[in-house]
């Protein structure tokens, strides 16, 4: 039986008085029941998920599949390349074996973003200053039954090791560059984590971190058993974790087979449902579509409108799931490039860009994309898509007037019609369409401007130039972190890890520093509001084209996908296979 943890009971500590309920909301917002861990998405009368995000202008289409549910079976997905060369669950850039076999400390509701207890079952903030956190583990967590664990319990020592390692505290000992721990900011200010007893972990922070628990929701902050450093990260067959499936077979470039972890049900009753979960390597997009139509795989991504039509023709009974993902596409100027140092130039280009034309042309009549300014609209504090749409530059109804204003701003900055501004827009391939549309729209609005799209053959070449800040403008995509302040730090603070355009503003830095330590929810919200307003009216450090639409076709006999669908389900959808099962139709 799971403990029921809610916002108030979670922080029954001596710090409650000082933090107040508003602060508690930041530290202990694990709300509601976690029975079964099945999420909080409910089926509406129409058989669709009633998304809590509708008020924010985010589309969510997640049909609830009905039928006689069956246990067992083999569930197969296209795994792209099965040569997953980034095995270290803490330093991996992208999808990783531990994303499948492991778990996170906490889970966000994929729709509402509410924190749900998971591996960490409850938590407390016992001191007034918010510098000590007490995390309680679920008592029924067992590592896969293979050496050296042989089914041993996952304890507070494991959790402490994970938190300190994520922070990069072991970098020197492991001879791994500290910068490799890319999720270190998710546990910002952590200086120590220690086991108090087998199920209790004490975390010590150097400064308060209002984003700490949101950081633990991040999809790449996976937990691993503490022996992994000794075992190494090259052989998947040797890897173990506490997740619903364990590695049973690994054939490079061919398939990975996972078998059910028999003790997982003690943690999440009744899960997982499939006996076997398998990924097969299908690198080609058309091949993956064909595999879906022939029923060889259970899901396929359908981004482009024509592709969606083709899949619908081939598999008319399949279900379409649509939501706005946590990714966001953008065009980022380098603030080292003289013309782009001037806010008027940056603002003029914003006013000239037609965001609706961009989104509609990419996603077609079914839509699914959302307007976004400084923060992803799925953040509770982020401006809604509707609100952003009403602002000059984004608003399609005022586009002609906005372009006229843009031309005035450009002339006032000393670049009439963009004369004298020539620049390259680099990209690594996947954002070619954005770069091209940017180029076209800028040429339309500013006849003397000379933007040139420059594709950089490989992703690595692009990544290298991006990291070095060796560009005048670039087109790329970012996966939002699970906390707006963490996002602000990495993207916009002077020297931020992903502030590739070298944007720097003292006022902005001060707001960020205040926000990360602000434990009062109202005050924090106010600071975030100020940040978003100034981002628009004073800073304009980049151009977010839209929040990304995700469209997935799922075979008709797969039930439970509505529990996966939602903005915060990126990356670890494979981990959520535990929620799915077959139905007789």
């Amino acid at each position, binding site marked *: 039986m799971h403990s029921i943890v809610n916002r108030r009971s979670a922080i029954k500590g001596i710090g409650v008085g000082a933090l107040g309920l508003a602060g508690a909301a930041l530290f202990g917002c694990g709300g509601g029941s976690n029975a079964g861990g099945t999420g909080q998405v409910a089926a509406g009368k129409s058989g669709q998920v009633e998304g809590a995000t509708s008020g924010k202008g985010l589309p969510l289409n997640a049909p609830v599949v009905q039928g006689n549910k069956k246990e067992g079976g083999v569930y*197969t997905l*296209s795994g792209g*390349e099965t*040569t997953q*060369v*980034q*095995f*270290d669950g803490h*330093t*991996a*850039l992208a999808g990783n074996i531990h994303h499948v076999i492991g778990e996170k400390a906490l889970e966000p509701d994929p729709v509402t973003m509410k924190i749900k207890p998971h591996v960490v079952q409850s938590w407390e903030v016992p001191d007034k200053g918010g510098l000590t956190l007490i995390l309680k583990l679920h008592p029924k967590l067992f590592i896969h039954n293979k050496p050296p664990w042989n089914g041993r319990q996952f304890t507070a020592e494991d959790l402490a090791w994970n938190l300190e390692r994520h922070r990069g505290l072991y*970098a020197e000992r*492991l*001879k*791994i*560059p500290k*910068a*490799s*721990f890319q999720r270190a900011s998710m546990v910002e200010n952590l200086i120590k984590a220690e086991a108090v007893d087998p199920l209790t972990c004490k975390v010590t922070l150097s400064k308060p971190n209002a984003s700490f628990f949101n950081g633990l929701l991040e999809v790449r902050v996976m937990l691993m058993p503490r022996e992994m*450093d000794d075992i*190494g*990260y*090259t052989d998947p067959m040797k890897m173990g974790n506490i997740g619903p499936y364990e590695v049973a077979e690994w*054939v*490079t*470039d*061919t*398939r990975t087979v996972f078998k059910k972890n028999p003790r997982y049900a003690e943690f999440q009753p009744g899960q997982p449902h499939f006996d076997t979960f398998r990924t*097969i*390597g*299908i*690198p*080609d997009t*058309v*091949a993956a*579509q*064909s*595999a879906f*139509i*022939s*029923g*060889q795989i259970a899901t396929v991504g359908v981004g482009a409108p024509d592709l969606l039509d*083709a899949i619908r*023709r*081939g598999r008319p009974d399949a279900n379409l799931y649509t939501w706005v993902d946590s990714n966001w596409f953008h065009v980022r100027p380098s603030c080292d490039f003289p013309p782009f140092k001037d806010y008027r130039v940056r603002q003029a280009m914003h006013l000239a860009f037609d965001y609706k034309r961009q989104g509609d042309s990419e996603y077609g009549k079914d839509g699914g994309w959302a307007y976004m300014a400084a923060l992803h609209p799925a953040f509770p504090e982020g401006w809604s898509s509707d609100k952003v749409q009403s602002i000059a530059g984004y608003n399609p109804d005022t586009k002609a007037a906005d372009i006229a204003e843009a031309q005035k701003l450009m002339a006032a900055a000393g670049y009439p019609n963009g004369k004298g501004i020539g620049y390259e827009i680099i990209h690594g391939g996947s954002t070619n369409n954005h770069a091209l549309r940017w180029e076209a729209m800028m040429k339309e609005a500013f006849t003397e401007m000379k933007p040139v799209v420059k594709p*950089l*053959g*490989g*992703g*690595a*070449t692009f*990544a*290298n*130039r991006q*990291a070095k800040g060796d560009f005048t403008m670039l087109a790329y995509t970012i996966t939002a972190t699970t906390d707006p302040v963490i996002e602000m730090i990495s993207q916009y603070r002077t020297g931020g890890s992903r502030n590739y355009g070298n944007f720097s503003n003292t006022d902005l830095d001060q707001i960020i520093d205040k926000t990360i330590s602000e434990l009062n929810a109202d005050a924090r919200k106010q600071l975030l509001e100020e940040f978003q307003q100034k981002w628009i009216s004073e800073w304009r450090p980049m151009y977010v084209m839209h929040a990304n639409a995700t469209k997935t076709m799922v075979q008709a006999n797969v039930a439970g996908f509505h529990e996966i669908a939602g903005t915060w389900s990126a990356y670890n959808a494979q981990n959520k296979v535990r929620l799915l099962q077959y139905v007789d139709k």
Partner: protein
Amino acid sequence: MSTYIIRRLLAMIPTWLIIIFTVIALVRLMPGSVVDILLQEQGGQGQLGGRANVERNELLKRMGLDVPIPIQYLRYVGGVVQGDFGRSLWSQEPVTRLIAQRMPVTAEVAVLAFTTAVIIAIPVGVLSAIRRDQGTDYLLRGITVAGISVPGFAIGTAIILFPQLWWGWGVSFNYVTLTEDPLAHLKILIPPALVLGIQLSASSARLTRTMMLEVLQQDYIRTARAKGLIESTVIMKHGLKNALIPVVTVFGGQIEGLLGGSVITETIFALPGLGRLMVNSINTRDYPVVQGIVVMTAMFLMMMNLLVDLSYGWLDPRIRLR
């Protein structure tokens, strides 16, 4: 003959050395520093096939890039002579082992494709020649022109998609080895072999037709017919065998196309062969593997060219190789 073979083998050495130099130079001509890219892509995650330190200098040393290029070249050649093609930067496995693991799949597809090509090209070419300027000839010539014109990835995509949409028949992407399930294995390999084989057969069929037309006008064919030999013997024994020399030359040269085509075909059909290893290695900047595949493929093709030359003597006894 043996003198000829030895002379040809010796002549391969400078070609082979130039190829190695070209490959090594190309790696260094990549935009940006290879080491920096690697540091960012894999070193940036702190892993180099395990717990190794990914400091820049160590990576330089590991890649053999810490010494001048001429020394790097000589070291690599020295290693290759001893059968050491280096190790994968990711998995730390010897390149030779990686290639050996993938080679069977590519070889099987190549053999099947080659067989398909021969089965299609020779009869089509012969039939087209003996039905010259008739409807059959026009039809077959049209088909072969289409076969030459349509790129392999388009044929591959069509084979994957259209039967699925029209008849509900889908290519299997769940690769199994020959020992796991021979029948399923064959079913998986046939579609990619067809794609490569059709392409290869198109140009060969046209050449077979042309050569057959030329040979069928020779005096010895007229003599054979005058002797009262049946037409099939005239065509197959006296005509085809003499028409095959240039066809064999073209077939030999097209083995290169088969290996090159495997890069695309194996990606489309999700086969774990050498072509896909090449693509993955380029994507992950695993340069020792890329170098190893290119150098070994070059060696293989040079040997194939030698075999083609040697086959001339068997096809036409008038040819003596000295």
